[in-house]
């Protein structure tokens, strides 16, 4: 009963012919395809954000460079931050949530496949809405942090900030919808035997991230609603003439903004926690502590927001409390670093491309962590905040941490996603270009900052002691840009030219590697019963997992009537052949997403005194949204 006879004719070819073409992507509800869409879209925005960085660095290459105007520069740095945070790193993580979580927990899809599609489409539309204005020199220019009252109509009368407020508001809907979906998926869709403490570390870290999203996005939603109402309806939340307090925005923003940092970094931590054991041939060192430290980071992440505000004058007591909370968060983070090193200790470390990126994450994130502790001390931070020292710090965290981790994940999971390897030579070129480039770019920023260079300035005089550092940073950026082009070439080319990968090309231990690459639409032909953290190692090399908790005995006596022991699935069928009901393709989520975006964009016209136009578009969008929602909810899933 555990084996399936091959069908009499090639089901595979038939299945793939049904699943190609634009429509199959527009109407898809398959978490793997949605993950792929996320990946491509986010990589596109990553390139856009990178291009913005290149322009920024070109302007700063030399004193009084005059390459772009002040207004353009301000748009560039605002959009670089906004793009990288909301349109690149978060969705790159989302690509992995989508692709991996169901595979890692042994599910056939996410809990709400159509909501998942909706999240993607809202993200895509919101991303376009935010990005297109820069082509017309009207992009948001208030910084990614959008501090009031600069962002109010009084000081920013153009449409620039309107795009930012609406765009982020819409992206928030996408993130929240996705978070509800993944929380439900992880709680409720795990295969039999997949207890919480057996979940792969990526799924665990993603699980923490979903809670951060659910709890951190409402405050910024509220902050943005206030700003939106101030801008479009004349309320007084940030109106200085009405006695508003600008710290309201700052508190609401950073109550979101600091957990957001962990939203950006924890998925990368999860990815390297998959990569390191695989390429060390050892299980993750101290799994339990890794889980608890992840939860601890997420929890403490909500208590440290005001360390972004040490210069605003909160008073000595508040400064001290937030300072100590911030130092506290260094402890679970440090534990992770040591546990990763211990994972490699006494292992057989193979320097494949994903492993190189994972090792680089440990080395580079440590630097960002240490500089982070340096400005957890408010008096020292007063010399550092809003200087290039901070820019250096968070790029070591976000580039050295998130981006390195995500690249480790991409090289690691590319064979699973496409069935083919990425080229190793090009991968190495990309890795070294990235590693050297990032250090050349961001290490000198520590010095330009401590030697007095403020952030967000579009020009500076020579002789300030910053010239050399800026020149180095600019050349470093060019190196990163070039190596990223190598990556893009590799990424695109390997889809058709890469060496063919089997189920388990790296010798990994988790469930996703037990099924074919790329996985069939139903993921698992039979529901696997999981007996340990590394079920595939149990199967292939039990000595490796002998020391960790198991329910081996139960493997013979399957607890769930329908499950079978974990095994490698090598045959491909269609879901129909197996009789597995799959969610039907539908474009209703896209329709609904278009409605949502339309509804919000109508507001833009309000500030041009085009009330009728605004109302027509907004009400039209709302009708589309509600109609789409009803149509979607009343049509069958499968």
């Amino acid at each position, binding site marked *: 009963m555990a084996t399936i006879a091959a069908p009499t004719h090639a089901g595979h070819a038939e299945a793939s012919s049904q699943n190609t073409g634009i429509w199959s992507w527009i109407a898809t509800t398959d978490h793997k395809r949605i993950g792929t869409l996320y990946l491509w879209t986010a990589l596109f925005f990553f390139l856009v954000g990178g291009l913005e960085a290149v322009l920024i660095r070109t302007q700063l290459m030399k004193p009084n460079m005059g390459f772009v105007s002040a207004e353009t520069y301000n748009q560039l740095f605002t959009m670089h931050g906004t793009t990288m945070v909301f349109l690149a790193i978060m969705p790159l993580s989302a690509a992995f949530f989508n692709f991996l979580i169901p595979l890692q927990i042994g599910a056939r899809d996410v809990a709400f496949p159509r909501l998942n599609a909706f999240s993607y489409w809202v993200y895509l539309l919101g991303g376009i809405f935010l990005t297109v204005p820069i082509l017309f020199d009207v992009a948001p220019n208030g910084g990614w942090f959008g501090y009031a009252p600069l962002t109010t109509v009084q000081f920013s009368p153009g449409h620039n900030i309107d795009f930012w407020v609406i765009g982020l508001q819409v992206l928030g809907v996408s993130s929240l919808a996705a978070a509800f979906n993944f929380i439900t998926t992880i709680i409720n869709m795990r295969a039999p035997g997949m207890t919480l403490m057996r979940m792969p570390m990526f799924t665990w870290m993603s699980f923490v991230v979903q809670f951060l999203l659910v709890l951190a996005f409402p405050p910024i939603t509220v902050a943005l609603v206030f700003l939106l109402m101030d801008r479009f309806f004349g309320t007084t939340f940030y109106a200085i003439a009405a006695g508003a307090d600008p710290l309201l925005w700052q508190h609401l923003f950073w109550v979101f903004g600091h957990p957001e940092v962990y939203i950006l970094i924890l998925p990368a931590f999860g990815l390297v926690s998959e990569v390191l054991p695989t390429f060390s041939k050892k299980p993750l060192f101290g799994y339990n502590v890794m889980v608890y430290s992840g939860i601890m980071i997420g929890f403490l992440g909500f208590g440290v927001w005001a360390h972004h505000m040490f210069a605003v004058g909160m008073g000595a007591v508040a400064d001290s409390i937030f300072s100590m909370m911030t130092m506290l968060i260094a402890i679970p983070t440090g*534990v992770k670093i040591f546990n990763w090193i211990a994972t490699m200790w*006494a292992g*057989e*470390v193979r320097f494949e491309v994903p492993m190189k990126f994972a090792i680089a994450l440990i080395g580079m994130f440590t630097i960002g962590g240490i500089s982070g502790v340096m400005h957890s001390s408010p*008096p020292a931070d007063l010399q550092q905040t809003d200087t290039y020292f901070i820019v250096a710090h968070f790029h070591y965290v976000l580039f050295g941490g998130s981006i390195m981790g995500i690249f480790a994940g991409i090289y690691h999971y590319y064979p699973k996603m496409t069935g083919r390897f990425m080229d190793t030579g090009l991968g190495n070129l990309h890795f070294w270009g990235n590693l050297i480039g990032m250090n050349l770019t961001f290490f000198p920023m520590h010095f330009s900052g401590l030697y*007095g260079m403020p952030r*967000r300035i*579009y020009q500076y005089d020579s002789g300030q002691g910053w010239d050399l550092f800026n020149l180095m940073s600019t050349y470093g950026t060019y190196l990163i840009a070039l190596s990223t082009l190598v990556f893009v070439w590799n990424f695109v080319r390997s889809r058709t030219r890469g060496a063919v990968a089997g189920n388990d090309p790296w010798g990994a231990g988790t469930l996703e590697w037990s099924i074919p690459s790329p996985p069939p639409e139903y993921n698992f032909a039979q529901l696997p019963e999981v007996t340990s953290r590394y079920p595939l190692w149990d199967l292939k090399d039990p000595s490796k997992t002998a020391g*960790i908790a198991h329910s081996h005995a139960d493997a013979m006596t399957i607890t769930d009537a329908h499950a079978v022991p974990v095994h490698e699935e090598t045959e491909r069928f269609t879901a129909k052949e197996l009789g597995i009901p799959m969610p039907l393709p539908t474009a209703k989520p896209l329709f609904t997403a278009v409605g949502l975006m339309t509804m919000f964009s109508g507001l833009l016209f309000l500030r041009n005194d085009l009330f009728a136009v605004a109302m027509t578009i907004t009400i039209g969008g709302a009708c589309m949204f509600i109609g789409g929602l009803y149509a979607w909810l009343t049509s069958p899933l499968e």
Partner: protein
Amino acid sequence: MPKLRLREAGPALLFMVVLLTLTACGDTVYPNTTFTRFTDLNSSILSLWDRLLFWGTIVFVVVEAALIFTIIRYRKRPGGPEAKQIHGNAILEITWTAIPAIILVLIAVPTVKTIFQTQAPAPAGALKVQVIGHQWWWEFRYPELGIVTANELYVPVGRTVSFELTTKDVLHSFWFPAMGGKRDLITNRTNYMWFTPNADLGTQAWNGFCTEYCGSSHANMRIRLYTVQPDEFESWAKHQASPAVFNPLAPAAPPATPVANASNRRPAVPAVDTAPAQPSTGYVFPIEKLPAHVVPQTPIPAGLDFDDALLAGGDATRGATQGFMLGGCIGCHAINGVPGAVSNIGPNLTHVASRHTIASGLYKFDGPTLARWIKNARHMKPGVIMNTIGRGEYDPGMKMTVTAGLDDRQIADVVAYLMSLK
């Protein structure tokens, strides 16, 4: 071998850290360095920083060394040992939780002490300075001395200066890297900060910056700080508190300026180039003592032409009585002693010619630059509120050509007038 290159990267980085940290002392190369002990505030901060850097370096070395050792020692080799299947070790994990915790306590205790020490109320007898942020310039008021000035701040060495920070519009942040940490200017709030320049600091000029993003010209909101000797400060303050030295618009009697140089009262005399400050006009930081890094270098944008020959013929009286009115200058700028010139939308110009920079440290204070600034300020400093005044100039803010406004000769008169306001 890629592996080897990684091995080299670690020590190289560390070397860079040490090397560049050592050079921190050289403030000729790094004139805006934060590694100074020039004030009590920054001494406290630097002591804390030294401790942070010490522990940071140790952690950095330990972690990176452990990482590099591990990946080299345990790299997969043909015939090498098999991976040992270790899953965890409670004692080790407790150890590397506890050690960072202890280090953090060693950082936290002096941190909290320094917070309370530096945020305590300023000692009695401090010199009060009100700092008011504007997009994109700084207004400085010395309420006890009756001084209102802009963008260039004089403080005596050896005396605590206590800043009261507010803003007229958006958020700004007030920072002199060499003097100590910054403090934000928050709309509808008042912030405080104080420091004491060392008594042995000497008469020196320093750079300061706005460090909270505040819009288009955030980069162009710079400050000059002059630490001067107490007697120099007294002389400067006394003169700054007096009304304008040259004042054809003043009521006839009594003379508005007790220390005014009589020669300045004769029209058509003012020298166009910066003449050395007259002794009777009070102390001014000597221009020849300005180090290169506090002299602005912003290039004047291309296409902003002015016939510099006209400057020699500029008539200060005509500038005061006609240009200053027709150009609308009086609408925004105060000149103490001039009836009607009381607005504080723009910087107070009473003693504008005693400053060394214009446009908040963006350009040198000299005739040709001043003329171009008056002609088209918005072209020289993006987003600035000051109108484009030159007739026929394109106003990048209003996106139209100015049809009224002043011609070059009238601007030369205004320049002559401003240059006389020592």
